[in-house]
């Protein structure tokens, strides 16, 4: 078992005073850029790449690992406090995190996000430590048919997001699916719903849509309600951090989130969107407090945040073992590797053991630093909410506009965000849930592309989804999720009319 020896060696290299300071710096910078609109972790690493000429590889990677984790966590802060998801994977956090903040429970939401990220990050890093080389073999088993089946499972669990009315829920879902279709079809080059507008050829940016539906719609809603009695500023209810009850309700979602995030994130076409949405849906299904979902249920923050962090750790598996970057941040890390003339790939663990194990050790350090930095910061963030609602709304609108503009440098996308802000407000007033809309917009295009790829590879034979064992098993689970609750309900409550 020389893994432990190698890891200790890695810690030996990473735990110098200089490297610890660099890790602290990385986490701080990462958290800041995550919180401030516009600069994502990928951009930050791009800006800091010239530092690789100054530091040794170890120092630079320790710092980049800090930025990587810090940026991810900082993104959840704006989602919870300001209703602004900085990236697609933070959208589920917004769904429950912001309502929690409105109820004066921002501290608990931030804490469960931070601790959940730490737990998921640590578990994932441990798994990567021991299994990374083997995990790259997953890539050899998963074909488009399996990806499609996983998507089906995610869509089946969406029924839990429907709210009171199935019709309204489905309408919202189909609006989302339509939004996902906008742009040039990547299989045939056919423009869909683009109306000859070049800006629409790449599709609608999900981040702009989500910022519109959440943050801008919230501002519109506040403005529309100005003749009603002013809401009092949010006061912190009870203690700032997590209560015993919060802990009890958070630990299972953390573990389940990790379980979704790590394997899916490790897939070369996995990403963080699918596991975070899947985790949110599953937590809502399993929760004993279903009525709280939409009003700020802590499980809905704990699960997706853990899934997000685990998926981001999982991204390192294809990066290190296959040389494949599956996110923008990962591709910046790949460039950093190449600057040091290191080519990640199947032979990396043999050729560059010191660098790899130091990077893995620095992931552990980055995770701890993140917790150390962010738990005390929660008190500061929570204070932010005590400003009067009108001012907070203005701040949300400003940050949302800045955020969308600086990500895209395009006024067009700001207009999209505003347009969806109005749409979101109308939907909200009319009692339509927005969560299915976002899920359709995010997962719809992914599912479509995998479906069509699977058919292209099977030469048009649709049985490919049931003849491949892994795909079949996932589809059966999906069927069980769809039919199971109905059957169980009929058995246990035979007196109630079926429906």
């Amino acid at each position, binding site marked *: 078992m020389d893994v432990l020896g190698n890891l200790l060696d890695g810690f030996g290299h990473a735990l110098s005073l200089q490297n610890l300071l660099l890790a602290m710096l990385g986490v701080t910078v990462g958290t800041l850029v995550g919180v401030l609109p516009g600069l994502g972790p*990928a951009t930050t690493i791009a*800006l800091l790449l010239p530092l690789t000429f100054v530091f040794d590889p170890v120092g630079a990677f320790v710092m980049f690992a800090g930025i990587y984790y810090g940026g991810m966590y900082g993104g959840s802060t704006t989602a919870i406090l300001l209703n602004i998801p900085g990236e697609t994977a933070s959208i589920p956090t917004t769904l429950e995190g912001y309502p929690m903040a409105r109820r004066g429970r921002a501290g608990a939401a931030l804490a469960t996000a931070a601790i959940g990220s730490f737990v998921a990050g640590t578990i994932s890093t441990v798994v990567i430590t021991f299994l990374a080389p083997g995990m790259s073999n997953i890539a050899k088993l998963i074909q488009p048919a399996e990806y499609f089946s996983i998507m089906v499972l995610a869509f089946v669990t969406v029924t839990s997001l429907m709210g009171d009315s199935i019709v309204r829920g489905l309408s919202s879902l189909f609006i989302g699916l339509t939004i996902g279709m906008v742009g040039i079809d990547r299989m045939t*080059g056919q423009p869909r719903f683009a109306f000859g507008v*070049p800006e629409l050829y*790449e599709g609608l940016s999900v981040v702009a849509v989500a910022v519109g539906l959440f943050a801008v719609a919230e501002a519109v809603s506040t403005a529309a309600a100005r003749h009603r009695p002013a809401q009092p500023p949010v006061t912190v209810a009870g203690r700032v951090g997590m209560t015993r009850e919060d802990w009890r309700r958070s630990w299972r979602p953390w573990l389940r989130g990790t379980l979704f995030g790590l394997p899916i994130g490790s897939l070369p076409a996995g990403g963080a969107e699918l596991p975070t949405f899947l985790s949110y849906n599953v937590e809502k299904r399993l929760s004993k407090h279903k009525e709280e979902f939409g009003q700020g249920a802590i499980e809905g923050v704990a699960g997706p945040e853990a899934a997000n962090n685990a998926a981001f750790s999982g991204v390192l598996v294809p990066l290190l073992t296959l040389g494949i*970057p*599956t996110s*923008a941040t990962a591709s910046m890390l790949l460039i950093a590797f190449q600057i040091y003339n290191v080519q990640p790939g*199947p032979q990396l663990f043999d050729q560059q053991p010191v660098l790899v194990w130091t990077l893995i050790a620095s992931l552990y350090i980055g995770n701890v630093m993140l917790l150390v930095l962010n738990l005390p910061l929660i008190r500061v963030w929570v204070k932010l909410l005590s400003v009067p609602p009108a001012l907070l709304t203005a701040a949300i609108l400003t940050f949302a506009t800045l955020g969308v503009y600086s990500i895209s440098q395009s006024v067009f996308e700001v207009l999209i965000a505003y347009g969806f802000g109005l749409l979101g407000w109308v939907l909200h007033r009319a009692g339509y849930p927005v969560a299915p809309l976002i899920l359709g917009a995010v997962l719809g295009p992914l599912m479509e592309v995998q479906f069509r790829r699977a058919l292209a590879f099977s*030469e048009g034979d649709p049985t490919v989804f049931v003849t491949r064992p892994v795909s079949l098993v996932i589809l059966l689970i999906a069927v069980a999720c769809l039919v199971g609750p109905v059957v169980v309900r009929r058995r246990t409550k035979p007196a109630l009319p079926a429906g």
Partner: protein
Amino acid sequence: MKIRLAAAVAAAVTLTGGCAVGESTDAGGAYPSKALSIMAPGSPGGGWDTRARGIAGALGECKVADVDATVTNVPGAGGTIGLAQFAKRTGDPYQLMVMDSVTMLGGIVNNKSPVDLSTLTPVAGLSRGPSAVVVAEKSPYEDLKALLDAMEAKPHSVKWTGGSLGGPGQMTVAGLAKGRDIAAKEINFVPTAGGGESMNLLLSGAATVGIDTVAELRPQIEAGELRVLSVDSEQRVPGIDAPTMKELGLGGEAVSTLAGVLAPAGLSKEQQQDVIGLIDKVRRSSCWKQVLERNNWTEDWKPGDEFGKVLAEQRTQVTAILGELGLGK
């Protein structure tokens, strides 16, 4: 996304007094006398971005010029969003854009861009990134001929994967198919966002064969996971034991992409020469040589109108191939 990155080192050089820097340009005074702006019409981390930052880095670190260079990213619609912005900067020799021929020409056709490259001032073709045709290690195909035979017999059964729709990879495949009289529409090509996705399709056995740049494929090739059937380059690629398409008598059908730099329309001959001179110095610098090596690129220097000629020729080829594939309509 669009980032302004004043190359930190370049800034430092300027601050510490730029007198000891570079050789003077012989053509008409002091070009460049102010900061340059280099546009990469793609996202950070992509091929165009790497090239733009490579040029900016060489200007600063290797002291090719004592001015700053800023890289801006304007991704979207196959590079044509950036192109449309760039085309408006008429007559300014301090604005440069990196691109590569086939990818950008394809982007123009696929996105029905109203702006094309013919009005812009060609500065230079710089490099090529060889691509390779690969199969999984367990694949029954040992050489490209056998694969093309199978494709001729039953086109749909050979499932290709590679980069974007209508990109250089798909065009090379279309060229290979044409050589065997296989109709372009019969080709079973599954486009991906590149890298990870197409690698997954290959390693999992979903795709029969893949085409991608050697830089992306090299780690898997060296690990023995992928077998190279052929490379699309002038000479054999060091460290890769496979014949070039030319050796197999297939070179004529491949449209190989040439990476280069463009300047806006409306530059005088002297201004064009100034810019060419500057980029010539960049490509001779040790910084640029490192960029080439790191990315598995090979130099292919085609200054000024030579580059323009390549673009004009490839424009016809690309439009024809994409038309056969049913794209750009």
